[in-house]
């Protein structure tokens, strides 16, 4: 194998820029998960009741479940197009460490699917009667949580990209693994929405989960992709 010309991080930057450029040309890839997020959140008052006291109780949970489902939906597209047109094989053969390239792709995916949810979450929280002061913690918890979801989900996406039954299988694999994220994220949001200062606790735990996921999942994703591409 020839020595690569560019450094791994420069290559990762190129992958990131490429993915962002592709997404901006296909804008619906970014907007569809947000619309889905808003729609799922709308289902809850319709299914339960529009009583303000109930909505205030369930608001944090609704935001989190909707964000979780929306990011599951977006995960499907993380590697599929690149596997189908052979880009991913070229990345594997490039001589660059695949884990770093995969991390760049996952970061791009989070910027495109996670950050829009972070920006949309105050809208949903307001619709569920949340106080305006807690938006910082709400958006922080969604930002940390969706980042962990993208990282863990990238392993699942890499494992299922080689099989024909993609979407449902992906959710079956990833949902049990991300339940701790849901627990701490919803807890932090709930405490913050009710003006409780102890919301920092679950937020720190979310942060430590992000660091753990950031350290370990790129290697698992790279290994899984190599298996899927065999």
């Amino acid at each position, binding site marked *: 194998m020839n020595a690569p010309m560019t450094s791994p991080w420069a290559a990762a930057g190129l992958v990131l820029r490429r993915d962002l450029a592709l997404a901006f040309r296909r804008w619906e890839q970014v907007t569809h998960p947000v619309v889905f997020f808003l729609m799922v959140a709308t289902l809850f008052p319709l299914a339960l009741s529009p009583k303000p006291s109930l909505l205030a109780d369930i608001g944090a949970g609704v935001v989190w479940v909707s964000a979780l489902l929306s990011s599951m939906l977006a995960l499907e597209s993380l590697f599929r197009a690149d596997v189908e047109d052979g880009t991913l094989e070229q990345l594997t053969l490039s001589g660059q460490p695949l884990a770093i390239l995969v991390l760049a792709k996952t970061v791009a995916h989070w910027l495109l699917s996670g950050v829009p949810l972070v920006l949309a979450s105050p809208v949903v929280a307001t619709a569920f009667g949340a106080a305006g002061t807690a938006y910082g913690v709400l958006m922080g918890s969604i930002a940390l949580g969706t980042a962990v979801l993208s990282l*863990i989900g990238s*392993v*699942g996406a890499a*494992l*299922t990209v*080689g*099989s*024909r*039954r993609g979407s449902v*299988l992906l959710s*079956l*694999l990833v*949902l*049990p*693994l991300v*339940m*701790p994220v849901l*627990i*701490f994220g919803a*807890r932090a949001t709930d405490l913050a929405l009710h003006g409780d200062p102890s919301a920092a606790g679950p937020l720190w*735990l979310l942060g430590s*989960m992000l660091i753990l996921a950031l350290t*370990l*999942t790129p290697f*698992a994703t790279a*290994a*899984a992709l190599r*298996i*899927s591409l*065999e």
Partner: protein
Amino acid sequence: MGTWTWFHKLASPPHFYRIAGKMIPWYAIPAVVLIVCGVYGGLVLAPADYQQGDAFRIVYVHAPAAWLSLLCYTVMATAAAVGLVWRIKLAHALAAATAPIGASFALLCLATGSIWGRPMWGTWWTWDARLTSQLILLFLYLGYQALRSAYDDITKADRASAVLAVVGVVNVPIIHFSVTWWNSLHQGATVIRAGGPAMPPSMLIPLILCFFGFTFLYAALACVRVQAEVLRRERNAHWLHDAMGARGAKE
């Protein structure tokens, strides 16, 4: 070098197939004896609990099933990691053989827990920490099985599901602690805790017998299932045709 030859020998399918066949009675007979003794001791000899009456006796199935569901996940993930790192096909066969056993024990644990919860807590299901983490463990098993069945190529299925098992085993303690902090109503640890077990020996001994009996049962089931896996994977191999031919000639 010499220390590793037994390992390589053990990892060869023909050798292991023979060993597993020989080991089955050595696991199955103690399993039957221990479980019969344990269940008799638990259902007949042990006194009724002063609080829970006779309802507590389901613990003789419930607790060993819970232990086995965790043990099976550990065995599965360890075997998967070994198979992934050293590319040992037999380790993958063991992981594949263990998953359905573990899932069954997890389901048995949930079912007996639910039946036990009805008279004790007055409800079939509560969102208690241990129940919920057991349920998530069952989901992990089901996800593993689903991934295996999604691939037709057995080598790919082995390696992909192995990555999932390893990722899952890193996650199991996180799930356990997150769910514990989330909610807790289940009775605290009774058997293993500081200050000795909170059970009289007449209750405890049958329980220990059941723990060992269930563990032997798993070992016997695993041997049978690994044999079946080897048969399925090596169905075109010469040694298998020779072994079957020899047996056929003897009969």
